[in-house]
């Protein structure tokens, strides 16, 4: 009796510890980013940091400047562009899998989607350099195809598995009774899908794309390889860009310790963290709202 209670309590404690650990790690990262980035703001004003688009921390003859606006714009361009490509493709595939495909096709297709999620980002970046880049260069008659569009296409490929899996789950979660009601009224399968099932699953689909976008924003290697790494304000999707993540990855290895530049890179990380945190939170709220409505 006493033994089983001790065992019960131990297991309880163990699980509680695991749960707490996640929170500790999350808070720890946040605190680290804040403490490491605060010194940067002794030299740079927050407004300058966020909204000036001149990033030149190693200038030797002029005053170094630390504006990340062009990187923020680049990051959003690439990831929102990715979303525009991935959303119709992803929802279309999800609808196909949940409503049209036969059992066998579905069983073959779903693992393939999962494999797509497992492809290392460096491989996707490679694909961008040798395949997507030249194609873009050819179509738009550019000297090279390493630009925001290239990054958006690659990130779309990376966001697809998330969007497909979660959207398919959202569509599957739509009660069968809605579908039956629609069919019984003389609706076709297509009408049932577009007018009943997708609207009913919409919050799930939105949440899926937000999560996909959260991943796209944080993605580093692919965009580093495929977007051309040009620190300038992009004017169109055909310009080379450099995202926040790419800047950190390129510069953090070479920056002298304990300099403003060093701390500024942490500050970029902090901004990135806050953006993805907000996006994840919004998708979570939408997802919960959706579950309530369906019940």
């Amino acid at each position, binding site marked *: 009796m006493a033994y089983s209670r001790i065992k019960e309590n131990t297991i309880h404690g163990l699980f509680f510890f695991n749960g707490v650990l996640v929170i500790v790690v999350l808070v720890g990262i946040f605190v680290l980013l804040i403490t490491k980035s605060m010194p940067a703001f002794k030299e740079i004003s927050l407004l300058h940091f966020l909204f000036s688009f001149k990033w030149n921390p190693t200038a030797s003859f002029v005053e170094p400047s630390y504006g990340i606006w062009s990187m923020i714009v680049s990051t959003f361009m690439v990831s929102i562009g990715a979303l525009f490509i991935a959303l119709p493709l992803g929802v279309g595939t999800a609808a196909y899998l949940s409503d049209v495909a036969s059992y066998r096709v579905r069983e073959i297709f779903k693992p393939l989607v999962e494999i797509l999620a497992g492809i290392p980002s460096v491989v996707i970046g490679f694909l961008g350099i040798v395949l997507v880049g030249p194609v873009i260069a050819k179509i738009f008659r550019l000297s090279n195809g390493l630009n925001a569009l290239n990054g958006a296409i690659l990130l779309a490929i990376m966001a697809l598995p998330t969007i497909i899996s979660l959207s398919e789950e959202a569509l599957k979660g739509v009660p069968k009774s809605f579908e039956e009601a629609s069919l*019984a*009224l003389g609706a076709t399968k297509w009408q049932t899908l577009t*007018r009943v099932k997708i609207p009913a699953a919409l919050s799930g689909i939105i949440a899926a794309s937000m999560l996909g976008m959260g991943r796209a924003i944080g993605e580093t290697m692919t965009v580093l390889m495929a977007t051309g790494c040009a620190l300038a304000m992009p004017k169109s999707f055909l310009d080379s860009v450099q995202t926040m993540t790419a800047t950190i990855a390129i510069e953090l290895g070479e920056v002298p310790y304990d300099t403003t530049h060093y701390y500024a890179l942490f500050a970029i990380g902090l901004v990135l963290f806050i953006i993805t945190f907000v996006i994840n939170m919004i998708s979570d709220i939408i997802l919960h709202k959706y579950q309530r*409505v369906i019940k």
Partner: protein
Amino acid sequence: MDNCKITVHNFNFYYGGVKVLKNISMEIPENRVTGIIGPSGCGKSTFLRSINRMNDTILGARAEGRIVIDGRNIYDDDIDVVGVRRKVGMVFQKSNPFPKSIFENVAYGLRINGEKDRYRIEEAVEKSLKDAALWDEVKDRLNKNAFELSGGQQQRLCIARALAVEPEILLMDEPASALDPTATLKIEELIQELKKKYTIVIVTHNMQQAARISDFTAFFMLGELIEYNITSIIFTKPSRKITEDYITGRFG
């Protein structure tokens, strides 16, 4: 007998390899309520869902024989299933409004038919809600979500939604089984009203309900049609012993 609306000829139905409806033949009269009773698993719901081909959505289901509506076998290869379902409306056991507004729920059937005229849609929605005896309760909140209605109101909304596409036949699968007695009474009164315009086939688990609302009653058991006659005869002097045992509550 009255004018015949639906004729069923030697109808068999299979789920996978299992035969769940065995050689059913019956004639369902126009503008009457035909009740289908029988113990659980007797195939009465399957039979009902065969009349608008809702069983098509089930994997591995197969039908044999004919169901003729207005002279046309709905199991012919070249039949337009969507057209059949527009003609044969259905109300389900559990009310299943769409997660849309009350108005949009009723308007749905019109919209999928390509109706775009706002005025005609409004008119049809009002008429259908009136026919389903729900108008007075919802006319001030047509834009509210359908889930805010009570269970009985939701079921009448589903009836209104089915009526909006102007079917000729209305299939009802235990439409009141999840409702309280007051809401059930309302639905039953509504069915009496509706039979003036529609041919109604209703599956019910509740024998008192069948006795109250249906003109004809069919008794199903283990996939077979045991007995089919005018309701008063079925309930007072059934010709088969097994029917009597069931309606007097000896089993089921």
